[in-house]
């Protein structure tokens, strides 16, 4: 934290000082109000998730249900018609595998594009970047047909492999490696290390924050993705948590408390990961090409 620019002492003395203090108080009040607004949806998840159906639909708003019904949570896991714990496990597997795979593939590609001189490197880079502009939903049907031709429907392979090639992640890595000081690599060169060993021994260990930042973004995306798992994970055993969640909102009967408790449980792993990794993410973003 070097910031705090406006706290710099003003030579004109007391009056300005007072206005600065008022300004600061106003700012704090505004921040607190905004923070409260941002927390409302989380509050609603908990309130509705731990209430009974009658309490949710009651015309008299209660801040919290009379009795916090933790049994809603256990019911969720014991409901035989929706394999909720299996779906959590699937989501975790898919998100972890997707994150690791994407980091490996995209960072290698990003490094190659940034550091290995090659005549067509720019063309390759623009070919990769160009795919960012193509909305995934529009190539959806051919992708689905392709994956099912490979026989990957309802397999983890089908859920994971096609999502591993993120042009966005590759772009971020390339930008980042472009800004990475060359001296370290040159030193490695002098020691006789080739591209491969330089990459693993020098570059990767020194660029952990960018891996953390990209990894988190990819992880969130994988955990939250919906349309692809819905169509590829046809068998109940291959449902992800988002698919399970959507099964509570089917057209005919909506059980609100079940829906909300499932939603609340589905975001817990991400919130925990977020709080733990937040500092890394900030540090990573700070040094990545994202905002360079």
């Amino acid at each position, binding site marked *: 934290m070097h910031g705090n620019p406006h706290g710099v002492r003003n030579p004109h003395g007391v009056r300005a000082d007072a206005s600065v203090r008022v300004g600061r108080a106003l700012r704090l009040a505004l921040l607190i109000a905004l923070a409260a607004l941002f927390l409302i949806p989380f509050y609603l998840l908990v309130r509705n998730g731990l209430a009974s159906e009658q309490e949710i639909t009651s015309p008299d708003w209660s801040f919290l249900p009379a009795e916090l019904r933790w049994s809603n949570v256990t019911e969720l896991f014991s409901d035989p*018609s929706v394999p909720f714990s299996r779906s959590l496990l699937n989501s975790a597997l898919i998100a972890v595998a997707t994150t690791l795979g994407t980091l490996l593939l995209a960072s290698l590609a990003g490094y190659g594009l940034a550091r290995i001189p090659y005549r067509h490197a720019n063309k390759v880079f623009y070919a990769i970047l160009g795919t960012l502009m193509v909305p995934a939903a529009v190539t959806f049907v051919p992708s689905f047909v392709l994956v099912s031709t490979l026989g990957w429907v309802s397999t983890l392979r089908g859920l994971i492999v096609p999502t591993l090639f993120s042009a966005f992640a590759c772009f971020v890595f390339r930008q980042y490696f472009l800004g990475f000081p060359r001296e370290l690599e040159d030193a490695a060169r002098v020691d006789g290390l080739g591209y491969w060993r330089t990459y693993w021994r020098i570059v990767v260990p020194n660029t952990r924050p960018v891996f953390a930042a990209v990894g988190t973004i990819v992880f969130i995306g994988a955990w939250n993705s919906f349309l692809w798992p819905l169509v590829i994970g046809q068998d109940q055993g291959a449902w992800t948590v988002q698919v399970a969640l959507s099964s509570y909102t089917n057209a005919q009967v909506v059980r609100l408390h079940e829906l909300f408790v499932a939603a609340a449980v589905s975001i817990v792993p991400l919130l925990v990961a977020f709080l733990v990794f937040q500092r890394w993410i900030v540090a990573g973003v700070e040094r990545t090409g994202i905002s360079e």
Partner: protein
Amino acid sequence: MTISRRRLLTGSTATAAAGLLSACGSNTGRGGSGSSGGPALSHWYHQYGEPGTEQAVRRYAKAYDKADVTVQWRPGDYDRQTAAALLTESGPDVFEANGPNLDQIRGKQVLDLTELIEDVKDDYNPAVLTPKTHEGRVYGIPQVIDMQLLYYRKSLLADAKVDPPRTLDELVDAAAKLTTRDVKGLFLGNDAGVGALGGTPLQAAGLELVTDDGEVGFDDPIAARTLGKIHQLYADKSLLLGAPSDWSDPAAFLQGLTAMQWSGLWALPAVQKELGDDFGVLPFPKDGAGSPSVPVGAYGAAVSARARDKDAAKAYVKWLWVQQTAYQEDFALSYGFHIPARISLAKKAEKLKKGAAADAVRFATESGFPAQPLLWTPRNQTVYQDGLSRIIKDGADPDKELKSVVRKVRAELERVAK
């Protein structure tokens, strides 16, 4: 599985990725227990809301001993999932469909099932068999008849001194009178009835979506007048909008958010349980020279043209949806109410002989019309619903709006007539 999981969680990036590419492809899909022997078949159902339905269809599948049937219970946008899956080898062998629709039939994505029901064809209610028939061939075996109807709360109507509405004008009046600050008069769905009603108001005015010979059935000033009355309901603020669950769920009616609700016969047991005798049912009231009407439709069992063992799939469908009348009866009546698609079963059904259920069956017999004619393609439905939404919600001029709808529907009907 275990290996890949351990590798994923503990290995370094490189080995984990290698393990991932090679090891985690273990097929979690079809296959199954293999207890009953015979070829493997996968059978898709959309997710029913009534408790017990899923267990029931799994039980039926298990009882079949000539194939190993795996039931897949599909949440979410079912029609879109089947449409995509039918393009590939990995889709279902047997699936229930709110169709199959005309392009699926013309595109030869589903098999001709005429021979399966040849012997008992006349026992199927024509209102639901006809929309599954194209050029004399049957492509889906109706499972049950789903019908929609109007529920009303007797006590609320009595309090407001309103009689059950017999005409569309009375419905507009009644809804306005029943509307209070906390309770709305009528719930037609969160989209103000666009999706649920479809062609129902046209039918009640003596018109129809599409005629039997493939012409637009509502190119008539009467259509504009009738649909304008639905807009009146909206403009009067008599309609409940934005309830958490939509028209197909009786929740809004049961929670006292509305005095009348358009819903399905399937909701009857839940309504009965909650309200006892304090409710009645009505068909959609007539308008002008028309007559009351209730839309009926059916999920049908269809066989994918890409089924690996077509004969086994057909044999299974014949067994379940033609021969096993006991299962058909159980499916129709034990988990929410549906009218059996077989006339002989419908006549026997004790549960449909008394009270509101008996009224409903009478409506279906006297005023039922196919909600989704085969020629009413998804394109037509989108165009019509867009227009209907603009008429009801935006107060667009019904005449002008319908003209453009008619023009587009005509073009689509010409396409499919080719």
